[in-house]
């Protein structure tokens, strides 16, 4: 009987580990929709993009030097791919109490300073970052529109060189978008990058 009890405990442990491992969305999963406030006050949802081929959803923020290093590249990617059916949505998941620079008001200022022509939305409850499994900024989720249902096509880095845009060798995100435009899967469909940890609410 004791043995049985031990095994059931072991089994429940394995299950709970699996639940943790399954945290967040993976490539191929359906992208969860949301309704989050943009810097212009409007609400943004995936369903607003039903005529797009895809969406470049980028978890980013104001304060993180890695995010700052990528701001111009994000603007450039949007100007290259929005008209080809892949617009950018930037989303800030940071807790504004931990990082006041990432408050909604400061997002409005930053978006204006940098002249963002794409939405910069506020994940105030951090629920979307948690659902997607975002851990750092910047953290990219490339979504593909399959007749109105968005699925995850690529997760990871924008490219392989955060500090020097001139010396980028692998444009992971751009390559993934190009693959989707040719009806191919992204390869690689998952990459990693160094970034600032998302500042979770305490």
């Amino acid at each position: 009987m004791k043995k049985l009890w031990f095994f059931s405990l072991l089994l429940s442990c394995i299950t709970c580990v699996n639940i943790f491992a399954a945290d967040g969305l993976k490539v191929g999963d359906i992208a969860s929709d949301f309704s989050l406030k943009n810097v212009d006050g409007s609400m943004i949802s995936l369903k607003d993009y039903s005529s797009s081929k895809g969406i470049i959803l980028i978890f980013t923020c104001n304060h993180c030097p890695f995010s700052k290093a990528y701001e111009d590249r994000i603007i450039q990617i949007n100007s290259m791919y929005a008209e080809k059916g892949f617009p950018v949505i930037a989303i800030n998941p940071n807790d504004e109490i931990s990082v006041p620079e990432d408050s909604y008001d400061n997002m409005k200022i930053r978006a204006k300073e940098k002249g963002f022509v794409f939405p910069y939305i506020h994940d105030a409850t951090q629920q979307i970052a948690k659902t997607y499994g975002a851990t750092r900024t910047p953290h990219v989720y490339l979504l593909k529109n399959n007749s109105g249902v968005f699925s995850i096509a690529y997760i990871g880095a924008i490219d392989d060189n955060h500090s020097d845009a001139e010396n980028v060798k692998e444009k992971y995100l751009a390559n993934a978008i190009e693959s989707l435009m040719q009806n191919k899967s992204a390869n690689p469909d998952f990459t990693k990058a160094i970034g600032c940890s998302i500042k979770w609410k305490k």
Partner: protein
Amino acid sequence: MLYKVHYTLLLPLFAWIFIQSAPNINAQNQGRVVSFSEIDSLLHNSHDTLYVINFWATWCKPCVEELPLFEEINEIYAHQPVKVLLISLDFIQDKEKVLLPFIKKKNILSEIVLLKAENPNEWIDKVDSEWSGALPATLLINNQKKIRKFFEKQFKHEELQDIITQLLKSEL
């Protein structure tokens, strides 16, 4: 009795090997730029030392908050084979104007290297496959004792110390 004599004679030799195998701690070397291959060879060396390797950056708030915990480790385990290495992921171009003044101001005694972090996608998994790339991250490793613990988080209070004490106990 004979064996005892022999061991005593060998002690200076062991001490010498240990000193030779431990990486140089030299204030002038603080913040020296390294490539990942140097870190990789450290991750695969067979010294009987518990390496406490922390990935951080001066601009990373939680990293800076937990730095004193790593500095304490040097004092607490001064007479044990524990070695702290702080791997900075500051921008290379910020070494002179940001990193070195920071090290001086905070009077950091742990060894600090600045990682030339080209293509992190190639090496993040070599540190640990569980690492998403977010900072701070810490790896505790002693290959000889087959110890490898990875944490993608900020340590609180005595948490790091407790983990190290546990690991050193389990070695015995």
